């Protein structure tokens, strides 16, 4: 409203930086948009083999088709369900295990070196063994996801508990907090940043494990959908599957970031971020 009152010179001064800011905001989109346009034109002109790289519009219509026949949602739901159950079981055990070894030294002596040893095994290599054990049903896939997410949560919970400021724990003792109060008011919140880092890694591993497991043995789920599409050379569906994975990965990332923002609002880094918001 005060802009009218400004002299032309000052107005120009004001618009120039905002134009630059506008350009800055556009820059990240420039490359993807350019690629999309070139890609579409090249595909339509027959410059690239549509078998290998269908046009963006073809992928969009594949999206629409699979949305209408319900297969996209059914497969996404099948995968999400496995992912979440596995996360709950494996992540829960990892958290509890890390808490036990972090808080209680005998548990560390007994368990930690075993866990560190097993950690060296690439857990995807367990897939064939797990299929032999459980067959190709749901159990095998959930088991694999659980193993995949166990380790990051275990390690980061343990690390978080162990690196809680000893001085704060001592203060809490002096000021008469009992074990439970110390755990809930000092140790768990202190370990939380590290636990959340573990959660973020776990979510990445969760999708990754599931994709491989579903690719190898499944009759539903996103991994099955894309692998099936590859066999029938439906490249558009393959790319669609990749995009859905990206979206799910992003969603998981957003979720942890939201948890972080809420849970770590005491942290100076988050306070600065909030103050800088317009």
């Amino acid at each position: 409203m005060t802009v009218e009152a400004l002299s032309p010179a000052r107005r120009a001064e004001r618009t120039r930086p905002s134009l630059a800011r506008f350009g800055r905001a556009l820059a990240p989109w420039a490359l993807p948009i350019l690629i999309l346009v070139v890609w579409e034109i090249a595909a339509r002109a027959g410059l690239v083999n549509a078998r290998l790289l269908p046009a963006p519009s073809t992928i969009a219509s594949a999206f629409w088709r699979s949305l209408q026949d319900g297969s996209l949602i059914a497969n996404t739901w099948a995968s999400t369900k496995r992912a979440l159950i596995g996360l709950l079981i494996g992540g829960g055990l990892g958290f509890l295990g890390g808490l036990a070894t972090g808080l209680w030294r005998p548990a560390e002596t007994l368990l930690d070196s075993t866990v560190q040893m097993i950690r060296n095994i690439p857990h995807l290599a367990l897939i064939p063994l797990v299929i032999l054990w459980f067959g190709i049903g749901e159990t095998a896939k959930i088991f694999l996801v659980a193993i995949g997410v166990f380790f990051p949560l275990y390690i980061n919970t343990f690390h978080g508990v162990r690196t809680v400021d000893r001085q704060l724990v001592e203060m809490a003792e002096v000021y008469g907090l009992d074990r439970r109060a110390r755990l809930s008011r000092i140790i768990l919140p202190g370990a939380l940043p590290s636990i959340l880092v573990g959660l973020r890694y776990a979510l990445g591993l969760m999708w990754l494990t599931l994709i491989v497991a579903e690719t190898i043995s499944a009759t539903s789920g996103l991994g099955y959908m894309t692998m099936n599409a590859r066999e029938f050379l439906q490249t558009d569906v393959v790319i669609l599957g990749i995009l859905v994975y990206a979206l799910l990965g992003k969603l998981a990332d957003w979720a942890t970031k939201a948890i972080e923002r809420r849970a770590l609002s005491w942290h100076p880094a988050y306070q600065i971020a909030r103050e800088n918001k317009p």
Partner: protein
Amino acid sequence: MSAASQSFEAPAEARTSAAPAGRRSGRAVSARLLLGVVLPLGLGLVWEAVVASGFASGRLMPPPSRVIAELVRLASTGALWEHSLITLSRVLGGFAGGAVAGIALGVLTGTSRLLRDLLDPSFQALRSIPSIAWVPLFILWLGIFEASKVTLIAVGVFFPVYLGVSSALMSVDRRTAEVGRIFRLSRLATVRRILLPSILPATVVALRTGLGLGWMFVVAAEFMGASSGLGYLLVDGQQLGKPTQILAAILTFAVLGKATDAILASLAAPFLRWQDSVGEAP
């Protein structure tokens, strides 16, 4: 295994103990180490005994002795070396490609504002795709043979390296860089004496994470159709119902993964010596 979390493994020093430093003697430490292997060793022995006494067949979960026998058999026929070598060459090929690309692009976006604005958002978007999801597309594009496998590993290695290098470069303390100007170092000397040492630790961590992911992705790549490599031994073991072969291959994976990581770490150690000396200061 969870290579992605490798960098967050608690360093030995961070495992603060309630007991004051220096109180624990060497004997107590080795006693703790011994106690630590009690569980796996005990479980192995118990399982061995259970199978030997006929309470369980051990077909699905073979006892340690059978796994060792299988390892010896595979080694004596030469199959173990052959498959290990093939897998190793895939990992190293993909690692080299991904690491070079990651460092190059990381340096570009870490030093140029324009390139960062242009490229980084796209990489960030691509990053949220689990690299494994590319497998079917790579197979369609590059065929089912070596190229698609090595590319997958390279993509997996690329992202942690790229992110590690570019964020390390961006966070180089401006004051540190100013030291170069104060002492009138040449541009080259500034890079060599100040910039490189300050991003090297993060780069090594990124490379190790990338290598760990490379080992994970070679498993996935070899699942998707291979007639050789340790992953082939896994799939073969599954199809023929031979858990001993699967376990032998898994163990080999673990040993090779650990060994290559140790080699990478020791190769980097001479360049990081100044960092250790900070930690050792009394």
